[in-house]
Protein backbone atom coordinates (compact mmCIF):
# COMPACT_ATOMS: atom_id res chain seq x y z
CA UNK A 1 0.00 0.00 0.00
CA UNK A 2 1.31 3.43 -0.89
CA UNK A 3 0.36 6.59 1.00
CA UNK A 4 1.24 10.18 0.16
CA UNK A 5 1.52 13.13 2.53
CA UNK A 6 2.04 16.76 1.58
CA UNK A 7 4.96 17.84 3.74
CA UNK A 8 6.72 21.05 4.70
CA UNK A 9 10.00 20.18 6.41
CA UNK A 10 9.07 17.85 9.25
CA UNK A 11 5.46 19.04 9.30
CA UNK A 12 2.39 18.16 7.31
CA UNK A 13 2.06 21.02 4.84
CA UNK A 14 -0.55 23.46 6.26
CA UNK A 15 -2.30 24.13 2.94
CA UNK A 16 -2.52 21.59 0.14
CA UNK A 17 -3.27 24.32 -2.43
CA UNK A 18 0.22 25.79 -2.00
CA UNK A 19 2.12 22.64 -0.99
CA UNK A 20 5.48 22.10 -2.66
CA UNK A 21 6.53 18.62 -1.61
CA UNK A 22 4.95 15.21 -1.41
CA UNK A 23 6.23 12.34 0.72
CA UNK A 24 5.29 9.00 -0.78
CA UNK A 25 5.69 6.05 1.55
CA UNK A 26 5.27 2.37 0.86
CA UNK A 27 3.93 0.37 3.76
CA UNK A 28 4.08 -3.39 4.05
CA UNK A 29 2.40 -4.88 7.09
CA UNK A 30 3.42 -2.47 9.82
CA UNK A 31 6.70 -1.39 8.28
CA UNK A 32 7.59 1.50 6.03
CA UNK A 33 9.70 -0.08 3.31
CA UNK A 34 10.28 2.94 1.12
CA UNK A 35 10.11 6.73 1.39
CA UNK A 36 10.36 9.18 -1.46
CA UNK A 37 10.17 12.98 -1.53
CA UNK A 38 8.67 14.37 -4.72
CA UNK A 39 8.35 18.06 -5.70
CA UNK A 40 4.78 18.78 -6.79
CA UNK A 41 2.81 21.39 -8.67
CA UNK A 42 -0.23 21.64 -6.42
CA UNK A 43 -1.84 24.18 -8.75
CA UNK A 44 -2.51 21.31 -11.11
CA UNK A 45 -4.38 18.78 -8.96
CA UNK A 46 -5.55 16.78 -11.99
CA UNK A 47 -1.95 16.04 -13.04
CA UNK A 48 -1.06 15.31 -9.43
CA UNK A 49 -3.98 12.87 -9.10
CA UNK A 50 -2.88 11.08 -12.27
CA UNK A 51 0.70 10.90 -11.02
CA UNK A 52 -0.52 9.41 -7.71
CA UNK A 53 -2.65 6.85 -9.50
CA UNK A 54 0.28 5.95 -11.73
CA UNK A 55 2.43 5.39 -8.66
CA UNK A 56 -0.34 3.25 -7.12
CA UNK A 57 -0.86 5.69 -4.25
CA UNK A 58 -4.26 5.03 -2.73
CA UNK A 59 -4.36 7.44 0.21
CA UNK A 60 -3.44 11.12 0.42
CA UNK A 61 -3.06 12.86 3.77
CA UNK A 62 -2.85 16.63 3.64
CA UNK A 63 -3.56 19.85 5.51
CA UNK A 64 -6.30 22.34 4.66
CA UNK A 65 -7.57 21.95 1.13
CA UNK A 66 -10.08 24.00 -0.86
CA UNK A 67 -13.07 22.59 -2.71
CA UNK A 68 -11.68 22.42 -6.22
CA UNK A 69 -8.53 20.34 -5.69
CA UNK A 70 -10.39 18.14 -3.16
CA UNK A 71 -13.03 17.44 -5.79
CA UNK A 72 -10.45 16.66 -8.47
CA UNK A 73 -8.56 14.24 -6.21
CA UNK A 74 -11.72 12.51 -5.02
CA UNK A 75 -12.97 12.23 -8.59
CA UNK A 76 -9.86 10.17 -9.29
CA UNK A 77 -11.07 7.81 -6.54
CA UNK A 78 -8.18 8.71 -4.26
CA UNK A 79 -8.84 8.38 -0.55
CA UNK A 80 -8.33 11.81 0.93
CA UNK A 81 -7.75 12.62 4.61
CA UNK A 82 -7.60 16.42 4.68
CA UNK A 83 -7.14 18.97 7.49
CA UNK A 84 -4.38 16.96 9.17
CA UNK A 85 -1.58 18.78 10.95
CA UNK A 86 1.47 17.95 13.01
CA UNK A 87 4.71 16.06 12.71
CA UNK A 88 4.60 13.96 9.54
CA UNK A 89 6.59 11.14 11.16
CA UNK A 90 4.11 10.92 14.02
CA UNK A 91 1.18 10.87 11.60
CA UNK A 92 2.90 8.08 9.67
CA UNK A 93 3.61 6.21 12.88
CA UNK A 94 -0.08 6.35 13.81
CA UNK A 95 -1.04 5.22 10.34
CA UNK A 96 1.39 2.29 10.32
CA UNK A 97 0.29 1.09 13.74
CA UNK A 98 -3.35 1.33 12.82
CA UNK A 99 -4.14 4.15 15.23
CA UNK A 100 -6.75 6.70 14.34
CA UNK A 101 -5.36 9.83 12.66
CA UNK A 102 -8.54 11.72 13.39
CA UNK A 103 -9.12 13.40 15.76
CA UNK A 104 -5.59 13.42 17.24
CA UNK A 105 -3.96 15.13 14.27
CA UNK A 106 -7.00 17.04 13.06
CA UNK A 107 -6.47 20.78 12.57
CA UNK A 108 -8.15 22.98 15.17
CA UNK A 109 -11.67 23.99 14.24
CA UNK A 110 -12.22 20.85 12.17
CA UNK A 111 -14.60 18.29 13.52
CA UNK A 112 -15.00 14.88 12.01
CA UNK A 113 -18.59 15.83 11.19
CA UNK A 114 -17.35 18.54 8.85
CA UNK A 115 -15.16 16.12 7.00
CA UNK A 116 -17.72 13.33 6.78
CA UNK A 117 -19.52 15.39 4.18
CA UNK A 118 -16.82 14.67 1.66
CA UNK A 119 -17.94 11.97 -0.66
CA UNK A 120 -15.79 10.02 -3.02
CA UNK A 121 -16.64 9.79 -6.65
CA UNK A 122 -18.00 6.36 -5.90
CA UNK A 123 -20.47 7.76 -3.38
CA UNK A 124 -20.56 7.25 0.33
CA UNK A 125 -17.87 8.21 2.72
CA UNK A 126 -14.38 7.60 1.44
CA UNK A 127 -12.42 4.87 3.18
CA UNK A 128 -9.96 7.49 4.36
CA UNK A 129 -12.58 8.61 6.86
CA UNK A 130 -12.49 5.24 8.50
CA UNK A 131 -10.39 4.54 11.50
CA UNK A 132 -6.99 3.54 10.23
CA UNK A 133 -7.05 0.48 12.47
CA UNK A 134 -10.06 -0.76 10.55
CA UNK A 135 -8.39 0.19 7.29
CA UNK A 136 -5.36 -1.89 8.09
CA UNK A 137 -7.32 -4.78 9.51
CA UNK A 138 -9.11 -5.00 6.19
CA UNK A 139 -5.85 -4.82 4.31
CA UNK A 140 -4.25 -7.48 6.50
CA UNK A 141 -7.11 -9.93 6.25
Amino acid at each position, binding site marked *: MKTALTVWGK*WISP*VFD*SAQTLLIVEIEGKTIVNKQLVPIDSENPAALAKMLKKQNVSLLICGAISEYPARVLENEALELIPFISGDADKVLDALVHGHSIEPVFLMPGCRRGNLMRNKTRN*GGNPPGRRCCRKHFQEKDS
Partner: protein
Amino acid sequence: MVLMKIRGVDKENPVSTEGHSRSITMASRRVTSSKQQNRVPENVTETILESISDGVFTINQEWQITSFNRAAEEITGVSRDEAIGRHCWEVFRSNMCELECALRRTMEHGKSASSSTTYIINSEKKRIPISVSTALLKDANNQVLGGVETFRDLSLVEELRKELDGRFQVGDMVSRSSAMKKIFTILPQVSESDSTVLIEGETGTGKELLTRAIHDLSPRKGMPFVAINCGALPDNLLESELFGYKAGAFTHATKNKPGHFAAAEGGTILLDEIGDTSSAFQVRLLRVLEEKEYLPLGAVKPVKSNVRIIAATNRDLAEQVRNGEFRQDLYYRINVVQLNLPPLRERKEDIPLLVERFISRLNHFRGKTIQGIGEEALHFLMAHDYPGNIRELENIIERAFILCSEETIQSAHLPIDLLPDGFKADSQGTLESARESSEIQSILEALKRNNFNRLAAARELGIHKSTLFRKIKKLEINLPEIDGRKK
Protein backbone atom coordinates in the same frame (compact mmCIF):
# COMPACT_ATOMS: atom_id res chain seq x y z
CA MET B 1 2.28 51.22 26.01
CA VAL B 2 -0.09 48.41 26.20
CA LEU B 3 -0.31 45.49 28.50
CA MET B 4 -2.55 42.83 27.05
CA LYS B 5 -3.67 40.16 29.41
CA ILE B 6 -4.88 37.11 27.65
CA ARG B 7 -5.17 34.46 30.30
CA GLY B 8 -3.46 34.29 33.66
CA VAL B 9 -0.52 36.53 32.87
CA ASP B 10 2.74 35.44 34.39
CA LYS B 11 4.43 38.79 34.79
CA GLU B 12 7.83 37.26 35.38
CA ASN B 13 7.68 35.11 32.30
CA PRO B 14 5.29 36.77 29.88
CA VAL B 15 5.90 34.41 27.03
CA SER B 16 6.29 30.82 27.94
CA THR B 17 8.21 28.82 25.43
CA GLU B 18 6.42 25.74 26.67
CA GLY B 19 3.45 24.57 24.65
CA HIS B 20 0.08 26.11 25.45
CA SER B 21 1.46 29.33 26.80
CA ARG B 22 -1.32 31.46 28.05
CA SER B 23 -0.04 34.95 28.26
CA ILE B 24 1.96 37.60 26.61
CA THR B 25 2.99 41.04 27.69
CA MET B 26 2.88 43.25 24.67
CA ALA B 27 4.60 46.32 25.91
CA SER B 28 7.08 47.97 28.04
CA ARG B 29 6.90 48.27 31.79
CA ARG B 30 9.31 51.18 31.57
CA VAL B 31 6.56 53.57 32.28
CA THR B 32 7.18 56.58 34.42
CA SER B 33 4.80 57.27 37.23
CA SER B 34 3.26 60.15 35.33
CA LYS B 35 2.80 58.01 32.25
CA GLN B 36 1.35 55.23 34.35
CA GLN B 37 -1.50 57.55 35.21
CA ASN B 38 -2.34 57.82 31.50
CA ARG B 39 -1.88 54.14 30.77
CA VAL B 40 -4.80 52.27 29.31
CA PRO B 41 -5.92 49.63 31.79
CA GLU B 42 -5.35 46.03 30.77
CA ASN B 43 -9.00 45.11 30.64
CA VAL B 44 -9.70 48.10 28.36
CA THR B 45 -7.08 46.92 25.87
CA GLU B 46 -8.60 43.49 25.91
CA THR B 47 -12.03 44.99 25.33
CA ILE B 48 -10.72 47.02 22.40
CA LEU B 49 -9.15 43.95 20.81
CA GLU B 50 -12.35 42.02 21.32
CA SER B 51 -14.49 44.74 19.76
CA ILE B 52 -12.64 45.30 16.49
CA SER B 53 -13.67 43.50 13.33
CA ASP B 54 -10.12 42.63 12.26
CA GLY B 55 -8.72 39.31 13.35
CA VAL B 56 -5.65 39.61 15.58
CA PHE B 57 -3.40 36.90 16.94
CA THR B 58 -0.02 36.90 18.55
CA ILE B 59 2.67 34.24 18.56
CA ASN B 60 5.72 33.49 20.65
CA GLN B 61 9.10 32.67 19.18
CA GLU B 62 8.12 29.03 18.85
CA TRP B 63 5.34 30.09 16.46
CA GLN B 64 2.69 29.09 18.97
CA ILE B 65 -0.40 31.23 19.22
CA THR B 66 -0.55 33.12 22.50
CA SER B 67 -3.65 35.24 21.94
CA PHE B 68 -6.56 35.10 19.54
CA ASN B 69 -9.28 37.72 19.44
CA ARG B 70 -13.01 37.32 18.78
CA ALA B 71 -12.83 38.43 15.13
CA ALA B 72 -10.04 35.92 14.52
CA GLU B 73 -12.36 33.23 15.86
CA GLU B 74 -15.14 34.36 13.53
CA ILE B 75 -13.02 34.64 10.38
CA THR B 76 -11.10 31.39 10.80
CA GLY B 77 -13.90 29.39 12.42
CA VAL B 78 -11.45 28.25 15.13
CA SER B 79 -12.28 28.90 18.76
CA ARG B 80 -9.78 30.63 21.01
CA ASP B 81 -9.50 27.56 23.22
CA GLU B 82 -8.51 25.43 20.25
CA ALA B 83 -6.18 28.04 18.76
CA ILE B 84 -4.04 29.00 21.73
CA GLY B 85 -0.90 26.92 22.02
CA ARG B 86 -1.14 25.59 18.47
CA HIS B 87 1.32 26.49 15.73
CA CYS B 88 -0.01 29.50 13.84
CA TRP B 89 0.00 27.69 10.45
CA GLU B 90 -2.31 24.98 11.80
CA VAL B 91 -4.89 27.61 12.73
CA PHE B 92 -4.38 30.31 10.10
CA ARG B 93 -3.99 27.96 7.09
CA SER B 94 -3.03 30.60 4.56
CA ASN B 95 -1.51 29.95 1.14
CA MET B 96 1.34 32.22 2.35
CA CYS B 97 2.30 30.04 5.34
CA GLU B 98 4.70 27.75 3.54
CA LEU B 99 6.59 30.11 1.24
CA GLU B 100 5.60 33.71 1.76
CA CYS B 101 4.84 33.99 5.48
CA ALA B 102 4.56 37.68 6.35
CA LEU B 103 5.20 36.95 10.02
CA ARG B 104 8.40 35.09 9.20
CA ARG B 105 9.61 38.05 7.14
CA THR B 106 8.81 40.33 10.04
CA MET B 107 10.53 38.07 12.58
CA GLU B 108 13.62 37.74 10.38
CA HIS B 109 14.00 41.34 9.24
CA GLY B 110 12.34 43.14 12.13
CA LYS B 111 10.12 45.10 9.77
CA SER B 112 6.36 45.25 9.58
CA ALA B 113 4.89 43.63 6.49
CA SER B 114 1.57 43.65 4.70
CA SER B 115 -0.04 41.72 1.90
CA SER B 116 -3.32 42.22 0.14
CA THR B 117 -3.45 39.14 -2.05
CA THR B 118 -3.83 36.08 0.04
CA TYR B 119 -6.43 33.70 1.35
CA ILE B 120 -7.05 31.27 4.15
CA ILE B 121 -8.96 27.98 3.95
CA ASN B 122 -11.65 27.33 6.52
CA SER B 123 -12.84 23.92 7.66
CA GLU B 124 -15.62 24.04 5.04
CA LYS B 125 -12.91 24.06 2.33
CA LYS B 126 -13.83 27.63 1.42
CA ARG B 127 -11.13 30.09 0.46
CA ILE B 128 -11.55 33.35 2.36
CA PRO B 129 -9.76 36.32 0.75
CA ILE B 130 -7.92 38.36 3.35
CA SER B 131 -5.41 41.16 3.74
CA VAL B 132 -2.65 40.77 6.29
CA SER B 133 -0.30 43.00 8.23
CA THR B 134 2.33 41.94 10.73
CA ALA B 135 4.57 43.49 13.35
CA LEU B 136 7.10 42.48 16.00
CA LEU B 137 6.21 42.18 19.67
CA LYS B 138 8.93 43.49 21.97
CA ASP B 139 9.25 43.77 25.72
CA ALA B 140 10.42 46.72 27.80
CA ASN B 141 14.06 45.84 27.11
CA ASN B 142 13.47 45.75 23.38
CA GLN B 143 13.71 41.97 23.41
CA VAL B 144 11.61 40.28 20.76
CA LEU B 145 8.78 38.31 22.32
CA GLY B 146 7.18 37.17 19.10
CA GLY B 147 4.93 38.65 16.47
CA VAL B 148 1.43 39.93 15.91
CA GLU B 149 -0.66 39.36 12.82
CA THR B 150 -3.74 41.37 11.94
CA PHE B 151 -5.98 40.17 9.15
CA ARG B 152 -9.15 41.44 7.50
CA ASP B 153 -11.87 39.37 5.85
CA LEU B 154 -12.25 40.67 2.27
CA SER B 155 -15.10 38.34 1.24
CA LEU B 156 -17.66 41.13 1.17
CA VAL B 157 -15.28 43.49 -0.64
CA GLU B 158 -14.66 40.80 -3.25
CA GLU B 159 -18.39 40.23 -3.74
CA LEU B 160 -19.04 43.95 -4.13
CA ARG B 161 -16.14 44.28 -6.53
CA LYS B 162 -17.59 41.54 -8.68
CA GLU B 163 -20.99 43.22 -8.69
CA LEU B 164 -19.42 46.54 -9.68
CA ASP B 165 -17.59 44.79 -12.48
CA GLY B 166 -20.99 43.87 -13.90
CA ARG B 167 -19.88 40.32 -14.32
CA PHE B 168 -22.04 37.27 -14.04
CA GLN B 169 -20.74 34.26 -12.25
CA VAL B 170 -22.06 30.78 -11.76
CA GLY B 171 -19.82 28.20 -10.15
CA ASP B 172 -16.38 28.53 -11.67
CA MET B 173 -17.73 30.26 -14.80
CA VAL B 174 -17.51 33.99 -15.22
CA SER B 175 -18.69 36.19 -18.06
CA ARG B 176 -19.88 39.62 -19.13
CA SER B 177 -21.43 38.52 -22.42
CA SER B 178 -25.17 38.67 -22.98
CA ALA B 179 -25.18 35.15 -24.48
CA MET B 180 -23.70 33.74 -21.30
CA LYS B 181 -25.98 35.89 -19.16
CA LYS B 182 -28.99 34.16 -20.75
CA ILE B 183 -27.55 30.77 -19.78
CA PHE B 184 -26.71 31.90 -16.26
CA THR B 185 -30.24 33.31 -15.80
CA ILE B 186 -32.02 30.06 -16.59
CA LEU B 187 -29.45 27.84 -14.92
CA PRO B 188 -31.14 27.74 -11.47
CA GLN B 189 -34.44 26.54 -13.02
CA VAL B 190 -32.62 24.05 -15.27
CA SER B 191 -30.67 22.74 -12.29
CA GLU B 192 -33.79 22.42 -10.14
CA SER B 193 -35.75 20.54 -12.83
CA ASP B 194 -33.83 17.23 -12.79
CA SER B 195 -34.39 16.94 -16.56
CA THR B 196 -31.81 15.63 -18.98
CA VAL B 197 -29.74 18.45 -20.46
CA LEU B 198 -27.87 18.63 -23.75
CA ILE B 199 -24.91 21.02 -23.80
CA GLU B 200 -23.48 21.93 -27.19
CA GLY B 201 -20.29 23.89 -27.56
CA GLU B 202 -16.91 23.82 -29.22
CA THR B 203 -14.00 22.22 -27.44
CA GLY B 204 -12.65 24.35 -24.61
CA THR B 205 -15.84 26.38 -24.06
CA GLY B 206 -16.41 25.01 -20.55
CA LYS B 207 -18.99 22.25 -20.99
CA GLU B 208 -17.77 20.34 -17.95
CA LEU B 209 -17.70 23.52 -15.84
CA LEU B 210 -21.30 24.24 -16.84
CA THR B 211 -22.33 20.69 -15.95
CA ARG B 212 -20.62 21.00 -12.59
CA ALA B 213 -22.47 24.29 -12.01
CA ILE B 214 -25.80 22.60 -12.82
CA HIS B 215 -24.98 19.78 -10.41
CA ASP B 216 -23.95 22.18 -7.64
CA LEU B 217 -27.16 24.19 -8.01
CA SER B 218 -29.37 21.10 -8.10
CA PRO B 219 -30.92 19.14 -5.22
CA ARG B 220 -28.36 16.45 -6.08
CA LYS B 221 -25.59 18.69 -4.76
CA GLY B 222 -23.56 16.73 -2.22
CA MET B 223 -24.10 13.53 -4.16
CA PRO B 224 -21.48 12.21 -6.61
CA PHE B 225 -20.64 13.98 -9.86
CA VAL B 226 -19.03 11.81 -12.53
CA ALA B 227 -17.74 13.00 -15.91
CA ILE B 228 -17.00 10.54 -18.70
CA ASN B 229 -15.57 11.25 -22.13
CA CYS B 230 -17.47 8.80 -24.31
CA GLY B 231 -15.31 9.56 -27.34
CA ALA B 232 -12.16 8.40 -25.55
CA LEU B 233 -13.25 4.78 -25.12
CA PRO B 234 -14.05 2.02 -27.61
CA ASP B 235 -17.66 0.83 -27.61
CA ASN B 236 -17.29 -2.37 -25.55
CA LEU B 237 -15.04 -0.75 -22.99
CA LEU B 238 -17.38 2.23 -22.68
CA GLU B 239 -20.28 -0.09 -21.89
CA SER B 240 -18.37 -1.95 -19.17
CA GLU B 241 -17.02 1.33 -17.77
CA LEU B 242 -20.47 2.89 -17.59
CA PHE B 243 -22.60 -0.04 -16.52
CA GLY B 244 -20.00 -2.26 -14.83
CA TYR B 245 -19.74 -6.03 -15.17
CA LYS B 246 -20.29 -9.23 -13.26
CA ALA B 247 -17.65 -11.81 -12.40
CA GLY B 248 -17.26 -14.21 -15.29
CA ALA B 249 -18.68 -11.82 -17.87
CA PHE B 250 -15.47 -12.15 -19.85
CA THR B 251 -11.95 -13.54 -19.48
CA HIS B 252 -10.15 -12.10 -16.41
CA ALA B 253 -13.40 -10.65 -15.02
CA THR B 254 -12.78 -12.36 -11.69
CA LYS B 255 -15.02 -10.18 -9.57
CA ASN B 256 -17.94 -7.80 -9.91
CA LYS B 257 -17.03 -4.26 -10.90
CA PRO B 258 -19.52 -1.44 -10.52
CA GLY B 259 -19.57 1.06 -13.37
CA HIS B 260 -19.74 4.85 -13.45
CA PHE B 261 -23.54 4.81 -13.28
CA ALA B 262 -23.29 2.99 -9.96
CA ALA B 263 -20.61 5.47 -8.86
CA ALA B 264 -22.89 8.38 -9.72
CA GLU B 265 -25.96 6.88 -8.00
CA GLY B 266 -28.08 9.70 -6.60
CA GLY B 267 -25.95 12.29 -8.37
CA THR B 268 -25.17 13.52 -11.87
CA ILE B 269 -23.25 11.97 -14.75
CA LEU B 270 -21.81 13.92 -17.67
CA LEU B 271 -21.56 11.95 -20.90
CA ASP B 272 -19.17 14.12 -22.90
CA GLU B 273 -18.71 13.69 -26.67
CA ILE B 274 -22.03 11.82 -26.87
CA GLY B 275 -22.04 12.40 -30.64
CA ASP B 276 -19.03 10.10 -30.99
CA THR B 277 -20.80 6.99 -29.62
CA SER B 278 -21.88 4.02 -31.72
CA SER B 279 -25.47 3.28 -32.64
CA ALA B 280 -25.42 0.11 -30.49
CA PHE B 281 -24.35 2.08 -27.44
CA GLN B 282 -26.99 4.72 -28.14
CA VAL B 283 -29.66 2.00 -27.93
CA ARG B 284 -28.41 0.93 -24.49
CA LEU B 285 -28.31 4.51 -23.30
CA LEU B 286 -31.85 5.07 -24.52
CA ARG B 287 -32.97 2.18 -22.34
CA VAL B 288 -31.34 3.77 -19.29
CA LEU B 289 -33.14 7.04 -19.99
CA GLU B 290 -36.52 5.43 -20.61
CA GLU B 291 -36.56 2.63 -18.05
CA LYS B 292 -34.25 4.21 -15.46
CA GLU B 293 -32.35 0.94 -15.28
CA TYR B 294 -29.33 -0.68 -16.91
CA LEU B 295 -27.85 -4.13 -17.35
CA PRO B 296 -24.23 -4.63 -16.25
CA LEU B 297 -22.21 -6.88 -18.58
CA GLY B 298 -22.88 -10.50 -17.73
CA ALA B 299 -25.84 -9.68 -15.48
CA VAL B 300 -29.29 -11.14 -16.00
CA LYS B 301 -31.14 -8.72 -13.75
CA PRO B 302 -31.29 -5.00 -14.52
CA VAL B 303 -30.14 -2.50 -11.91
CA LYS B 304 -32.34 0.49 -11.04
CA SER B 305 -30.64 3.81 -11.54
CA ASN B 306 -31.26 7.24 -10.06
CA VAL B 307 -28.76 9.37 -11.91
CA ARG B 308 -29.30 12.65 -13.72
CA ILE B 309 -27.78 12.49 -17.18
CA ILE B 310 -26.22 15.51 -18.83
CA ALA B 311 -24.95 14.98 -22.36
CA ALA B 312 -22.44 17.22 -24.07
CA THR B 313 -21.00 17.39 -27.55
CA ASN B 314 -18.84 19.62 -29.71
CA ARG B 315 -20.73 18.46 -32.81
CA ASP B 316 -24.06 19.54 -34.26
CA LEU B 317 -26.26 16.70 -33.00
CA ALA B 318 -29.29 17.77 -35.06
CA GLU B 319 -27.13 17.60 -38.18
CA GLN B 320 -25.88 14.17 -37.14
CA VAL B 321 -29.50 13.02 -36.78
CA ARG B 322 -30.25 14.29 -40.29
CA ASN B 323 -27.21 12.40 -41.60
CA GLY B 324 -28.28 9.23 -39.81
CA GLU B 325 -25.21 9.30 -37.56
CA PHE B 326 -27.15 9.74 -34.33
CA ARG B 327 -30.37 8.04 -33.26
CA GLN B 328 -33.35 10.36 -33.48
CA ASP B 329 -35.16 8.77 -30.51
CA LEU B 330 -32.13 9.28 -28.27
CA TYR B 331 -31.67 12.83 -29.54
CA TYR B 332 -35.21 13.77 -28.52
CA ARG B 333 -34.78 11.96 -25.19
CA ILE B 334 -31.62 13.88 -24.22
CA ASN B 335 -32.60 17.17 -25.80
CA VAL B 336 -35.11 18.15 -23.10
CA VAL B 337 -33.19 21.31 -22.29
CA GLN B 338 -30.50 22.50 -24.66
CA LEU B 339 -27.74 24.91 -23.70
CA ASN B 340 -25.39 26.27 -26.35
CA LEU B 341 -22.08 27.58 -25.09
CA PRO B 342 -20.85 30.28 -27.44
CA PRO B 343 -17.24 30.06 -28.64
CA LEU B 344 -14.82 32.63 -27.24
CA ARG B 345 -14.58 34.48 -30.57
CA GLU B 346 -18.30 35.34 -30.14
CA ARG B 347 -17.84 36.72 -26.64
CA LYS B 348 -14.55 38.55 -26.86
CA GLU B 349 -15.73 41.00 -24.21
CA ASP B 350 -14.91 38.21 -21.76
CA ILE B 351 -11.24 38.08 -22.73
CA PRO B 352 -10.03 40.85 -20.32
CA LEU B 353 -12.08 39.30 -17.52
CA LEU B 354 -10.75 35.81 -18.19
CA VAL B 355 -7.17 37.08 -18.50
CA GLU B 356 -7.51 38.88 -15.15
CA ARG B 357 -8.89 35.71 -13.59
CA PHE B 358 -6.10 33.50 -14.96
CA ILE B 359 -3.42 35.99 -13.84
CA SER B 360 -4.93 36.19 -10.38
CA ARG B 361 -5.06 32.41 -10.08
CA LEU B 362 -1.52 31.94 -11.36
CA ASN B 363 -0.27 34.67 -8.97
CA HIS B 364 -1.74 32.69 -6.09
CA PHE B 365 -0.32 29.39 -7.19
CA ARG B 366 3.07 30.54 -8.46
CA GLY B 367 3.69 33.12 -5.75
CA LYS B 368 4.21 35.86 -8.37
CA THR B 369 2.84 39.40 -8.29
CA ILE B 370 2.08 40.10 -11.94
CA GLN B 371 -0.26 43.08 -12.00
CA GLY B 372 -1.97 42.52 -15.35
CA ILE B 373 -1.48 42.68 -19.06
CA GLY B 374 -0.16 45.51 -21.24
CA GLU B 375 -2.52 47.34 -23.58
CA GLU B 376 -0.76 46.18 -26.74
CA ALA B 377 -0.64 42.53 -25.60
CA LEU B 378 -4.35 42.64 -24.74
CA HIS B 379 -5.06 44.12 -28.16
CA PHE B 380 -3.33 41.14 -29.81
CA LEU B 381 -5.27 38.72 -27.59
CA MET B 382 -8.54 40.40 -28.59
CA ALA B 383 -7.65 40.07 -32.27
CA HIS B 384 -7.14 36.29 -32.09
CA ASP B 385 -9.93 33.85 -33.04
CA TYR B 386 -9.26 31.10 -30.47
CA PRO B 387 -10.11 27.82 -32.17
CA GLY B 388 -9.27 26.21 -28.81
CA ASN B 389 -11.50 28.69 -26.96
CA ILE B 390 -10.99 29.41 -23.24
CA ARG B 391 -8.57 26.51 -22.81
CA GLU B 392 -6.36 28.06 -25.50
CA LEU B 393 -6.48 31.49 -23.83
CA GLU B 394 -5.60 29.91 -20.49
CA ASN B 395 -2.58 28.20 -22.03
CA ILE B 396 -1.45 31.45 -23.66
CA ILE B 397 -1.55 33.24 -20.29
CA GLU B 398 0.23 30.37 -18.55
CA ARG B 399 3.00 30.52 -21.18
CA ALA B 400 3.27 34.30 -20.76
CA PHE B 401 3.51 33.79 -16.99
CA ILE B 402 6.55 31.59 -17.43
CA LEU B 403 8.31 34.13 -19.65
CA CYS B 404 7.24 37.28 -17.81
CA SER B 405 9.65 38.62 -15.20
CA GLU B 406 8.14 42.11 -15.19
CA GLU B 407 5.05 43.59 -13.57
CA THR B 408 2.81 43.18 -16.59
CA ILE B 409 2.54 40.70 -19.42
CA GLN B 410 3.76 42.28 -22.66
CA SER B 411 3.48 41.36 -26.34
CA ALA B 412 6.93 39.75 -26.24
CA HIS B 413 5.55 37.14 -23.82
CA LEU B 414 2.83 36.03 -26.23
CA PRO B 415 3.22 33.22 -28.78
CA ILE B 416 4.57 34.60 -32.07
CA ASP B 417 1.52 33.27 -33.96
CA LEU B 418 -0.61 35.85 -32.19
CA LEU B 419 1.53 38.78 -33.29
CA PRO B 420 0.94 40.62 -36.57
CA ASP B 421 3.55 40.32 -39.35
CA GLY B 422 5.10 43.73 -38.74
CA PHE B 423 5.61 42.94 -35.10
CA LYS B 424 7.26 39.63 -35.99
CA ALA B 425 9.71 41.49 -38.27
CA ASP B 426 10.47 43.89 -35.41
CA SER B 427 11.16 40.95 -33.16
CA GLN B 428 13.54 39.51 -35.77
CA GLY B 429 15.26 42.89 -36.06
CA THR B 430 15.75 42.94 -32.33
CA LEU B 431 17.38 39.53 -32.49
CA GLU B 432 19.63 40.69 -35.29
CA SER B 433 20.81 43.71 -33.33
CA ALA B 434 21.37 41.54 -30.28
CA ARG B 435 23.59 39.27 -32.40
CA GLU B 436 25.50 42.27 -33.74
CA SER B 437 26.08 43.67 -30.24
CA SER B 438 27.36 40.32 -29.13
CA GLU B 439 29.78 40.17 -32.11
CA ILE B 440 31.10 43.69 -31.43
CA GLN B 441 31.66 42.74 -27.80
CA SER B 442 33.52 39.52 -28.68
CA ILE B 443 35.73 41.23 -31.28
CA LEU B 444 36.67 44.12 -28.99
CA GLU B 445 37.50 41.79 -26.10
CA ALA B 446 39.65 39.58 -28.34
CA LEU B 447 41.49 42.63 -29.65
CA LYS B 448 42.12 43.95 -26.15
CA ARG B 449 43.43 40.60 -24.97
CA ASN B 450 45.86 40.57 -27.93
CA ASN B 451 47.00 44.17 -27.51
CA PHE B 452 44.98 45.10 -30.60
CA ASN B 453 46.99 42.77 -32.83
CA ARG B 454 44.38 41.99 -35.55
CA LEU B 455 45.97 38.75 -36.71
CA ALA B 456 46.25 37.32 -33.16
CA ALA B 457 42.67 38.38 -32.38
CA ALA B 458 41.39 36.73 -35.60
CA ARG B 459 43.21 33.52 -34.68
CA GLU B 460 41.67 33.56 -31.20
CA LEU B 461 38.23 34.14 -32.66
CA GLY B 462 38.76 31.29 -35.12
CA ILE B 463 38.23 33.45 -38.20
CA HIS B 464 40.47 34.63 -41.05
CA LYS B 465 42.05 38.08 -40.62
CA SER B 466 40.24 39.36 -43.72
CA THR B 467 36.92 38.22 -42.19
CA LEU B 468 37.82 40.15 -39.05
CA PHE B 469 38.61 43.29 -41.07
CA ARG B 470 35.32 42.92 -42.97
CA LYS B 471 33.38 42.57 -39.74
CA ILE B 472 35.15 45.55 -38.14
CA LYS B 473 34.15 47.62 -41.16
CA LYS B 474 30.58 46.29 -41.34
CA LEU B 475 29.93 46.65 -37.64
CA GLU B 476 31.57 50.09 -37.68
CA ILE B 477 33.86 49.25 -34.79
CA ASN B 478 36.07 52.20 -33.94
CA LEU B 479 39.52 50.94 -33.12
CA PRO B 480 42.10 52.94 -31.18
CA GLU B 481 45.30 54.19 -32.75
CA ILE B 482 47.24 51.47 -31.01
CA ASP B 483 48.28 48.59 -33.24
CA GLY B 484 49.60 45.31 -31.84
CA ARG B 485 52.35 45.22 -34.44
CA LYS B 486 53.86 48.48 -33.26
CA LYS B 487 56.20 48.53 -30.32
